[in-house]
């Protein structure tokens, strides 16, 4: 994860994707490997089979709104999502992602200009996104140093174990 820079193919989602769509309550108490088989089940049933580790997610407004279940960012980290870029995030999802070391970036304007299958380059530290397919660049909102530090270390628990 050198420098929190990622390049990969994009999966796109719309507005208000809530945590029940990411990780339905029925599967919430399952271990991540089983829960991940049901990720986005109701809205993108092919996702769990076809998503490859290292790929990226681009979404509209309010991605991850809803419950505080950390299993939502957890399953996305488990399936290997390199980063999630969205117009905006549900607050708790955003915090949880930072806490578990799943890179997230708020990037206004991104969703209208990105199609599923495009290749993106995401630089979390610089808060820059480049669509290599269309050669367009987008400026995101830079994360606070405290959050970047958690992402660099791979999550807030690493900060704890290092004292």
């Amino acid at each position, binding site marked *: 994860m050198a420098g929190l820079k990622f390049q990969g193919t994009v999966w796109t989602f719309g507005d*208000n994707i*809530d945590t*029940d*769509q990411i990780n*339905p*309550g*029925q599967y*919430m*108490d399952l271990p991540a490997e089983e829960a991940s088989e049901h990720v986005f*089940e*109701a*809205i993108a049933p092919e996702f769990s089979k076809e998503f490859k580790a290292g790929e990226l997610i681009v979404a509209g*407004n*309010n991605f991850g*709104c*809803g*419950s*505080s*279940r*950390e299993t939502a*960012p957890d399953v996305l980290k488990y399936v290997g999502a390199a980063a999630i870029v969205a117009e*905006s995030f*549900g*607050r*708790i999802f955003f*915090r*949880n992602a930072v*806490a*578990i070391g799943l890179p997230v970036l708020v990037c206004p304007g991104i969703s209208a200009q990105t199609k599923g299958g495009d290749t993106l380059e995401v630089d979390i530290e610089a808060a820059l996104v480049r669509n290599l397919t269309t050669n367009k660049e987008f400026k995101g909102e830079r994360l*606070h140093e*405290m*959050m970047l530090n958690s992402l660099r270390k791979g*999550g*807030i*628990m*690493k*900060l*704890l*174990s290092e004292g």
Partner: protein
Amino acid sequence: MGQTIAEKIFSEKLSRPVRAGEYVIAPIDCAMLHEGFVRSWMQLMSAGVSTVWDPDKIVVLFDHYVPAPTERMASAHMMVRNVIQATGIKHYYGEREGICHQVMIEKGHALPGALVVGTDSHTCSYGALGAAGTGIGTTEMAYVLARGELWFRVPETVKFALRGKLPKIVASKDILLHIAGRFGVEIAQYKSAEFVGEAADAMSIEGRITMSNMAVEIGAKFGFFNTDDKTLEYLKGRAAVPSRKLAADADAAYASAYDVDVSDLEPQVACPHSVGNVKPVREAQGTPVNQALLGSCTNGRLEDLRVAAEILKGRSVNRFTRLYVYPASREVYIDAMKSGVIQTLSEAGAIICNPCCGPCFGGHAGLLAPGERCISSTNRNFKGRMGSADAEVYLASPATVAASALRGAITDPREV
């Protein structure tokens, strides 16, 4: 310049004036964990930490999976009990007392001016009593258990001035649904909400809790009401320390402010699959429902059950509709029993369940089959929230839920 409630609380915690937009590391007054404890504890163990920062400031209970529906959950509960004994965590209520947010409020853990975090998104309920309550995930909670502090962005505030007098049978739930429908589910994203004005002042503590509870449904981190004599009265005998009044300064700066006149408000319903998909009940009138759910941390208090009982008294729930009642806590259950509310509901055919989350989040008990429809007094109607992803959940006030259970179809409570 003056301060909002959020700015006041963070300034107190930091012992220096802070402004919206600042990032701070703040000390936590109280941490609440339900079954989320299991994950937080496992995280802590893997980080090599086995003691907590302050056993007196941690509240643990079970509510999401009560009674334990699976062997896995029974084992999880058992593991938590063992840890509680080993760590000396003081406030442990087990599965006995009810839904976390109601219990936190009843037992005096949510106090004006306190910074409270919980492993549950509706921790913002405590704003009804002037506590800065907010939901966090289990990893951040693990950090809190170890360190007793957490980073926050001091939020900007959105003010909702509730003007006028609420018509009879229209409830605080209807106001919140109306706000979500009119302004959208992101209107307070990342922000603190303050509900003020004459309708807020006139509202009971129970009604305020309903609105603060759903503040997160419009994106908010906190959902405050000003604390007043009613708050102090409510907390008397519950809180270990004296409570106080708390309100924003008159010249505080707001990100935005909205006027909401409630005097002509009708009963509202949030249609599938978004809390923002709101219309007057009368426009959904007649839509058949297979299940009606009365209860939860949103609308499972005595006032809520009583409204439903008044509608259902001497009548019978539609034969093809099941009405589940989930009182928010044991205290509510007992009060509802003593006052005859439980009896009235049961005589009308309601199924009275134990105080717990029940089907509210789709975990277990009372789930919906594909194609089924439920009218519910809970706070979320997302796709798949209450069982099948092909089921539909409509959100409404307890009165609307009761009227709809009676007719077996969505019904404006003013008609029955």
